[in-house]
């Protein structure tokens, strides 16, 4: 296996990991504030279709990315209005949001089926990435770098800033946070909006970078993987990064092994690997922690004020 192939595999891996990383990072912040939004898949699809529609109509991928972010926020605000404003059940509303996102994106996207755009290209000029190893560093598109920067930013925000501390307090004990005067619902709404923005951006990564087209259910269930990843990472941004790239690596390895003709493993077994790996990791995590689930924010999914 030559260096060029290895580099190419890593590029595929990073591209596969990025949308999941973005969506999961947004959901992590939402959940840290105590809101469980299962509508990630729906918000990603809203972002994917809005991004494609705007990029196709205006010819600008950058505008598409902005539109996708806003569409994700809009979808998240529907969720916030229902769960935070009207006190509806978060699990049911999140599932409904996914169903809504699938339908709405299909409706909006109907006129864009069969169209394509120029995909989001590498951020740096080609000369930077002339050598295969340099491609590892300079060969990615802007969103890959942005996602890595956001992991760092979210990590610092949650651990090192006062605002991050308040957000975590709202997620751990909403009543206490309320008692000392923090506006629980406003903070939760903001966290939900951030989650929607990143989910929308992650969705747009499909329609603008990975597969520059619109087709129904373009994200094909990645939103659910993002949700699982948050649990896998135990609500820690650093582990989220590792988890997303691990998922990308396992998925890419599966395809590379098949292409290379490693016939000693049945294709069905290879197809199982990403999911097997998830089960193994989750099992190991719960075995290693007798108290089980202590990493989750204590008020996750609980309405405020309590009903």
């Amino acid at each position, binding site marked *: 296996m030559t260096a060029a192939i290895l580099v190419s595999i890593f590029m595929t891996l990073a591209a596969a990991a990025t949308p999941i990383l973005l969506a999961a990072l947004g959901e992590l912040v939402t959940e840290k504030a105590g809101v469980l939004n299962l509508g990630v898949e729906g918000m990603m699809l809203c972002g994917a279709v809005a991004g494609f529609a705007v990029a196709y109509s205006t010819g600008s991928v950058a505008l598409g990315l902005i539109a996708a972010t806003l569409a994700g926020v809009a979808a998240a605000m529907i969720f916030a209005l229902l769960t935070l404003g009207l006190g509806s059940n978060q699990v049911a509303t999140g599932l409904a949001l996914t169903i809504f996102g699938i339908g709405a994106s299909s409706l909006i996207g109907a006129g864009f089926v069969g169209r394509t755009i120029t995909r989001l290209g590498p951020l740096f000029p080609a000369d930077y990435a002339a050598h295969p190893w340099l491609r590892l560093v300079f060969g990615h598109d802007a969103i890959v770098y942005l996602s890595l920067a956001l992991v760092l930013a979210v990590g610092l925000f949650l651990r090192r800033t006062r605002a991050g501390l308040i957000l975590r307090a709202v997620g751990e004990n909403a009543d206490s946070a309320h008692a000392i005067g923090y506006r629980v619902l406003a903070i939760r709404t903001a966290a939900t909006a951030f989650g929607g923005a990143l989910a929308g951006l992650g969705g747009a990564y499909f329609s603008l970078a990975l597969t520059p087209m619109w087709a129904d259910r373009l994200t094909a269930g990645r939103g659910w993987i993002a949700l699982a990843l948050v649990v896998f990472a135990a609500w820690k941004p650093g582990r989220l990064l590792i988890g997303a790239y691990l998922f990308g690596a396992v998925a890419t390895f599966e395809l590379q092994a098949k292409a290379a003709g490693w016939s000693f493993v049945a*294709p069905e077994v290879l197809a199982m690997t990403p999911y097997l790996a998830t089960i193994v990791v989750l099992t190991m995590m719960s075995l290693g922690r007798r108290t089980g689930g202590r990493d989750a924010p204590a008020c996750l999914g609980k309405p405020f004020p309590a009903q």
Partner: protein
Amino acid sequence: MSTIITRRTLLAGAAATSVLPLTGARAQAPFGVGFVYVGPVGDHGWTWTHDQGRKAVEAAYGNKVKTSFIENVAEGPDAARAIRQLAQAGDKLIFTTSFGFMNPTIQVAKQFPKVFFEHATGYQRAENVATYNARFYEGRAVIGTIAGHMSKSGQAGYIASFPIPEVVMGINAFHLAAKKVNPNFKTKVIWASTWYDPAKEADAAKALIDQGCDIITQHTDSAAALQAAEQRGVYAFGQASDMKAFAPKAHLSAIVDDWSGYYVKRVKEAMDGSWKSGDVWGGIKDGMVKLAPYNDAVSPAARAAADELQKGIVSGTIHPFTGELKDQKGTLRLKAGETATDEVLSKMDWYVDGVQA
């Protein structure tokens, strides 16, 4: 007139109210025709081509028919509910358009003996259940011929869904045709284990290109693999519909499904009472399988060979599966000069030499 029922509204139980009215005892009630799709109509692939057929039925008969469809129906027992839904809503002819709908179709057909059913790509029939399919392997042989001529590395990547006979025969037909041009030709298969997952299809194409394939073809439903081929500067073929718009340079041709003629004909037969169960397997000759216009990049030699093969298939002088043919284990499958019967084709579970599956 048409009614769109999504999987979701069906689950929510709302579908009943959205389809039930209009039909019933009215004398001039339009003839109900239902379609059950495995994917979204917006896939621009398999399901999209069936929906084009549905639209052709509407265009042909206008207000005399009322078509409706349910999309994104999971294969397996769950499909029975979707099929029953259409039958209960008063549809008189129901097309179920995926292999995995076979048993549910037969099951529901028993409960509705007066409704006609048409199941695509299956082999189980009944008094009121007909089957139909297209000879896609003929199209596969044509693109295999082009691949044999156009590949410099002598390696093609094939993104496949599931190892059912339909897919296996496509792989073999493609490979045999390419091998006729280049005896050392290799076809590398990746089983995506899905009919539809654009990002995974694109990644599979990239993996195959990394491994030296300079031709990409697919038996999955989206255009994502073509886009990956375009990005990496290799050639590819469209699947189910002309996908040139997605990959102007990479798209050499495409196997185009055309169900319109069959659907229009069968709906007419069902309306005038002459509908009979049977098995139709149409190919290039019947217009059910078509080839999209060749890309300018296709060499004159490749064009000539592909055209000649098409002519031979239409006139019946060439069959893509002609002996002597051995499978990978060396078992003789077809004697010298023998052509594969439909029976052999529809049960194919072996690969010819040179296929890496």
